[in-house]
């Protein structure tokens, strides 16, 4: 549904993205993951027909985004980062305007309007002037306009940025609901977000795709060990040594306040054994929890591997 081949974009002499190639099949939900400035937005702007690539080609639903731009754009619903709306318009008025630009038939337009107002929980604010809406509501209007013409492809640039935790959960839920009906490409710089809502992630850094795959696979691929955090009430010098003797434990590092970082063999879960040891030794177990891999870890691992391979 989305095909990008060798996309390169220069801003002046600075390459924003270089040789970006990937495919998204019909109905797939894929996340672009990367730090700010990695080139996610630039790639999305090329896919949506906002600007042409310096080199390379991209197709949406089989239409070239530069050669057959209007056809390609017809199949895309786009929600830019920091959605900009017309503050003086009312929500419904704005959505009707968008629908007319998408050349929807009047009957279809009103059906879709009703649907997106409901899907994005906007019914109560349908007649509000956009300037009076909170950021969360504006974001929903942004999503509503992207969905309005029932596009085959949805391109969402940082759909949860600036939202409070409750709203983030709502937007994620909505994306899940839309999966299957639409092909979705969304960008984020939050790893758990990609893990929760996407089947596949493309990791970008410095304008290049450095890894791609299912989120779980990617983290296991990156991860050399499982990590746990163990905290005890009465730390002593023996703790680290004793924990190291627990089966499957590879390494133990002691931290402040009686906290220890315990690395264990991939696929193992020695938590029961760890807690028994702590209790038996009388150190009093306060906490034992798995350490989530952060985006920084993934990047570090990936970039380090790249360098050592080179």
């Amino acid at each position: 549904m989305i095909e990008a081949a060798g996309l390169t974009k220069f801003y002046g002499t600075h390459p924003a993205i270089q040789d970006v190639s990937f495919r998204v099949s019909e109905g797939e939900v894929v996340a672009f993951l990367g730090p700010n400035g990695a080139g996610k937005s630039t790639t999305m702007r090329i896919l949506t027909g906002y600007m042409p690539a310096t080199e390379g080609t991209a197709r949406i639903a089989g239409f070239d985004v530069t050669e057959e731009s209007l056809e390609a754009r017809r199949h895309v619903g786009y929600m830019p980062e920091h959605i900009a709306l017309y503050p003086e318009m009312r929500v419904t008025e704005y959505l009707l305007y968008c629908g007319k630009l998408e050349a929807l038939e009047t009957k279809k337009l009103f059906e879709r309007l009703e649907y997106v107002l409901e899907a994005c929980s906007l019914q109560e604010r349908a007649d509000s002037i956009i300037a009076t809406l909170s950021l969360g509501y504006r974001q929903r209007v942004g999503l509503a306009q992207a969905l309005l013409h029932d596009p085959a492809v949805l391109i969402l640039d940082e759909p949860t940025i600036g939202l409070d935790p409750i709203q983030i959960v709502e937007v994620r839920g909505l994306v899940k609901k839309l999966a299957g009906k639409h092909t979705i490409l969304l960008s984020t710089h939050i790893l758990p977000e990609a893990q929760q809502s996407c089947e596949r992630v493309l990791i970008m850094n410095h304008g290049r795709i450095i890894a791609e795959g299912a989120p779980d696979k990617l983290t296991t691929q990156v991860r050399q060990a499982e990590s746990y955090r163990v905290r005890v009430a009465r730390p002593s010098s023996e703790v680290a040594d004793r924990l190291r003797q627990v089966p499957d434990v590879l390494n133990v590092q002691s931290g402040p306040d009686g906290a220890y970082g315990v690395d264990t063999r991939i696929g193992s879960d020695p938590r029961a054994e760890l807690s028994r040891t702590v209790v038996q030794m009388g150190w009093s177990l306060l906490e034992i929890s798995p350490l989530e891999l952060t985006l920084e870890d993934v990047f570090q691992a990936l970039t380090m591997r790249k360098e050592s391979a080179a």
Partner: protein
Amino acid sequence: MRATLTIALKEFRGYFIAPMAYVVVLFFLGVSGLIFVLTMAMPQAATNHYRGVMQSMVFITLMMAPVLTMSLLALERGRGTLELLMTRPVSDWSIVLGKYLAAVMIYTGLLIVTLLYPLLMSVGGEVEWGTILSGYVGMFCAGLAFMGIGLFGSAITADQIAAALSAFFILLFFWIMGFVAQSVPSGLGDVLNHLSFIEGYLEFAKGVIDLKNVVYFLSLAGFFVFLAERVVESRRSV
């Protein structure tokens, strides 16, 4: 075509939401009305005098056009709404023409309102409708050119004030050329005179609809609308 109309209607409605349009409309109708009343207060007011009113209106239009058009593209760029507009299945031409059409609609509306003046005159005396019609055709054509230049100003920057000023300087340039023409050797002077608004408009005001002058204003309008479209399109690849 449908998209062009959709955009034009949205902009047209937008004019009545923003205070700036009201200021511009009041300015246009206020000043032209004042000039009309003052002119009519003179003894034996007649069509001849209304010609002067029409000439003033062209000048008011020249001052008003940059303000009426400054928001068209600059505001969308400044606010960032242009990105979504440009990713819709709508050509750049539709966007630019839709915006242009909105300004032309407002201007046409204003001209129609000012037809009240000669109507009022006809109550009290004889009016040469032919001359008036020709003057209005001239004002309409000149307005098309002025709005085109205004639109171009709005395309080249994201700042409305800068947009209005750029358009105003271009308009002033074309206006002043008529004066410059009188102080340079006749060969060059003729060329400048042909390029100037004044020469073109004066003939309309005399009651002569010369195709040459219609073509002059229309090609000026077309040229600047074309430039505006080029600018919008070129901004995509920056």
